[in-house]
């Protein structure tokens, strides 16, 4: 796998790399890549962190990896049920260190749109809507999102609608990792098979790339963990992620 780093593996692995020791980390609904990232981090890294999820799980040990990232199996092995009001309140009072949140469009200030393509009142595409973002993005210590498509449609200069503001701490796509720097998204690294030029061309907003380099390839432990989570490649196939 290190020889050909798939977009799927790149996405999941780099989401996992945002997870830090001992922190409280949350993955939500409609969020298969961060769910896998949390489970990967539990297997691949030699530190512990508090994994909470939208299924009420607190440090769960699910017996199977579900298709739905809100499946109650994700609370299996948990010592407590931490239900929805509980984890939202934890976040708004400042106790959520890292929160993975979905987005359809992301702008250069790390704001997100999950509401609509086109005008809200005359939608071209009605998207899922507000979800966790508007409350969690500004109140989590760090919020990270992902896009399975890296394009000027998804990483935009101007959002069609600002669902959530507050500034993402990170964005991962199949070819790049952005982090927050001075209230803007800055490029941290790019896929070894891509280039800074390519990332610039495929990104709708301007960004700083000072110090950016190719992303370190997945470690043996990261590869093994993802392999264990997706032994027959079903998640990878379902994700339909292409580098280009």
């Amino acid at each position, binding site marked *: 796998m290190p020889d050909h780093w798939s977009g799927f593996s790149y996405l999941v692995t780099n989401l996992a790399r945002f997870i830090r020791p001992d922190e409280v980390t949350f993955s939500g*609904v*409609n969020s*298969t890549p961060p769910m896998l990232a949390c489970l990967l981090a539990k297997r691949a890294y030699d530190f512990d962190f508090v994994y909470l999820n*939208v*299924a*009420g799980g607190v440090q769960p040990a699910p017996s199977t990896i579900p*298709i*739905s*990232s*809100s*499946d*109650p*199996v994700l*609370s299996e092995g948990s010592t407590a*049920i931490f*239900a*929805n*009001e509980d984890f*939202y309140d934890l*976040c*708004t*009072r400042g106790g959520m260190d890292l929160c993975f949140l979905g987005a359809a469009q992301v702008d250069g200030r790390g*704001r997100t749109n*999950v*509401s609509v393509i086109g005008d*809200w009142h005359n*939608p*071209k*595409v*009605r*998207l*899922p*809507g*507000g*979800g*966790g*973002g*508007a*409350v*969690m*993005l*500004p*109140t989590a210590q760090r919020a990270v999102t992902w896009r399975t498509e890296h394009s000027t449609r998804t990483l935009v200069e101007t959002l069609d*609608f*600002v*669902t*959530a*503001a*507050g500034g993402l701490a990170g964005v991962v796509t199949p070819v790049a990792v952005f982090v927050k720097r001075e209230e803007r998204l800055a490029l941290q690294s790019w896929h070894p098979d891509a280039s800074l030029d390519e990332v610039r061309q495929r990104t709708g907003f301007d960004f700083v790339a000072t110090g950016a380099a190719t992303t370190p390839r997945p470690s043996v432990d990261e590869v093994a963990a993802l392999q264990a989570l997706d032994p027959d490649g079903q998640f990878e196939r*379902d994700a339909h992620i292409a580098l280009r």
Partner: protein
Amino acid sequence: MPPPKITTLAEMAARVPDGASLALGGSFLHRGPFAFVRELIRQRKTDLEIIKQSPGYDLDILCRAGCVAKARAGIVAMEGNFGLAPWYRRAVERKQIVLEEHACMTLTAGLRAAAFGVPFQPVGGVHGSDLPSLNAWAAVKDPYGSGQEVWVIPAIQPDIAVIHVNDANELGDARVYGTYNWDRIMSRAAKQVFIVAETLAPVRSFTDRPELTLIPSFMVQAVAVVPHGAWPGSCWPLYEVDYPAVEAYMDMDRELSLHMAHAPERQERVDA
């Protein structure tokens, strides 16, 4: 003695007037009152207002059947690998329903206001979002001088909360295994609570461990026992999502009646 609370799904749905606001329990494909929702369709309810932080199949099929006038929701999707909720999406894009778009927690704040008996509820975050201006939400400055401004959400009081649970008893008490999602606050905010239960459990099992009861009997107006009633969704730990059934549902060219005919509560009816 109060009247017995155990009733049929059909009778329970019949108590829902056209135009009622319904809070639906569960989340996405999990532990939703889906048999109840299908019964609303069979009874051709109209102008319903659906209140749920994370609806999916339930709101979608109700939109498909033309039962919905308004949705107040946080995030609407089929989830799993199914993406957007197609009939909901179409209903919004064609302006067949009115959408009040929330963050999950702003909707919850509105339910909290109703549950707490106050006209509005402050909620953390939301700053910088376009949602407040969309919904004409107000910000209130902290009267205690912190300088903070906080968004406040007006009370949201559903007419009926409909909750699918694992166990209920004949008195009306209900409990859930695994996460109860948003059902606790829904049950406290709504004027009435209807329970759809997988199992009618002995009262004794509740008195043995009353801490597990999510919704106490006196708050519950009706209970229908519908095994497998969350189909095609899951009800932990009894059954998982029926993915092939959801996939078949997602075929927009396939008749809704074919899907409805496969529903377990339909089967049960034929048996009964």
